[in-house]
């Protein structure tokens, strides 16, 4: 069984983002970029399936500028076998991403597709579900445990009320939550080895698709900052403030 993993290049989670003065977006110049943390968890899960003998090959795909090769190499260093970049300089919205990934699914015929549940830049939480819909696969979002047996996969999901376990027919789409696993660090030998692994480059055009972003971003603003508060000396002062000033207790 092949496992396909989608990864996205995003602003590093530690970076404090700044909105551009012209309100056209956030400033990405000279900002540290990294693999989306949820995607890293997806790569780790796929590699573990291979190590357990449940997956034959782990293919990692990214959609974005040529710089996304860096994140594909990171995934290869973590243990993925080969990469595919769908190169574009344009904005890729989730529906387009899902359509591009569907084309890859049709070529590669994976038994399982694993994606992060959301990317920490656009915070959409959509692409996996859309891919599942377009390919007619079942979906298990927000996964915290994955168990593959013959022709099914059992997935425990983190939901509002607690945990929910589903059984899906394969092929299926899984999106990862934070506690699915703790991704490994790439070792130096594996980073060197990853440089020799194959990475193919294609385009939307070659896949027979044209990007058509449906949502128009009119402006991007910084939120109203909270006013700085005060420090209180002790618990008695705190309770007094809550009762008599804020009036919330």
């Amino acid at each position, binding site marked *: 069984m092949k496992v396909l993993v989608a990864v996205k290049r995003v602003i590093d989670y530690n970076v404090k*983002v700044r909105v551009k003065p012209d309100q056209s977006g956030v400033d990405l110049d000279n900002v540290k970029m990294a693999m989306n943390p949820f995607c890293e968890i997806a790569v780790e899960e796929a590699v573990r399936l291979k190590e357990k003998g449940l997956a034959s090959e782990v293919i990692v795909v990214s959609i974005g500028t040529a710089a996304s090769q860096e994140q594909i190499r990171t995934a290869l260093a973590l243990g993925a076998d080969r990469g595919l970049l769908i190169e574009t300089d344009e904005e890729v919205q989730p529906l387009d991403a899902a359509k591009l990934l569907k084309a890859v699914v049709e070529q590669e015929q994976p038994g399982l597709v694993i994606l992060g549940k959301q990317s920490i830049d656009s915070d959409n939480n959509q692409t996996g579900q*859309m891919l599942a819909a377009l390919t007619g696969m079942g979906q298990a979002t927000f996964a915290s445990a994955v168990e593959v047996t013959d022709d099914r996969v059992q997935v425990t999901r983190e939901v509002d009320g607690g945990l929910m376990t589903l059984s899906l027919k394969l092929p299926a789409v899984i999106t990862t939550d934070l506690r699915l696993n703790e991704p490994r660090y790439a070792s130096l030998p594996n980073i060197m080895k990853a440089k020799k692994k194959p990475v193919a480059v294609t385009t939307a055009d070659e896949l027979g698709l044209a990007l058509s972003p449906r949502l128009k971003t009119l402006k991007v603003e910084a939120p109203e900052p909270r006013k*700085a508060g005060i420090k209180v000396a002790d618990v008695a002062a705190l309770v007094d403030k809550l009762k008599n000033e804020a009036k919330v207790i």
Partner: protein
Amino acid sequence: MTILVLAEHDNNTLNQASLSVIAAARAIGGDIDVLVAGENCSAVADAAAAADGVTRVLLADSPLYGHFLSENLALLLSRTGHAYSHILAAAGTTGKDVLPRVAALLDTAQISDIIRVEDADTFVRPIYAGNALATVRSDDPVKVITVRPTAFDPVSAEGGSAAIEALPAAEDAGLSAFVSAQNAESDRPDLASADIVISGGRGMQNGENFQLLENVADILGAAIGASRAAVDAGFVPNDMQVGQTGKIVAPQLYIAVGISGAIQHLAGMSDSKVIVAINKDEEAPIFQVADYGLVADLFDAVPALENALRDAV
């Protein structure tokens, strides 16, 4: 223009979040139909019909929907929803699971987690963990949207008298099956809609120490939350996580105990009306958003707070 709202429920009770989604629908304007899909869930349909501002309730009562499997719900919603101008659901785990699937089936974009309605086509949503707010416009004929419930004051649960119509089930997608659920049982208010929330972080050191927060919560009638660090460390279960990728809360009072205040946590609680931070590290970023900060060892301060509140409340 008619808007379809997917009700969130547990087959017995309509989730409060749905009343906020109905409020968002009213802000868009037009008739509002509420779809209640579940199993033996007529009580939920009754509750939806009584909500203020609802035009009609569609009740799809079938074993296919008892566990809210997204493949089946999305089929039903895409069949029913294509005739609507907007399809709305709360941005909880059900809405986030199902609506993108519906949008893809309808070949339309989905707009996630809106916090404001500018007009029927234009919405504001947080991106980058709430560090930026994007105003986006959709020209799709059907707009599929998840709504952040804390950003819209819920409509009244009473006053409406909408008609309830049965909606036949769509076919079984046959792709997934429910195996089991592990639901946290609690007498406390729902974290996402509680008036007061007290949350613990890594500073709590272990799960047993959350008893200190329980004692305070008992007095205040508060819900209990946690930072990602506390959940990752196994102190408390995942459904207590407040943050960018966990639950978004905006209570009247949020008390952060032993939480440093990573931006991912702030994304989940910074719209709270009053924020209190108790932390022994006076440099902790949580103090930058706190209305009242107390630099103290939580193991002294929280029991003292419990005692003081017992006298004060």
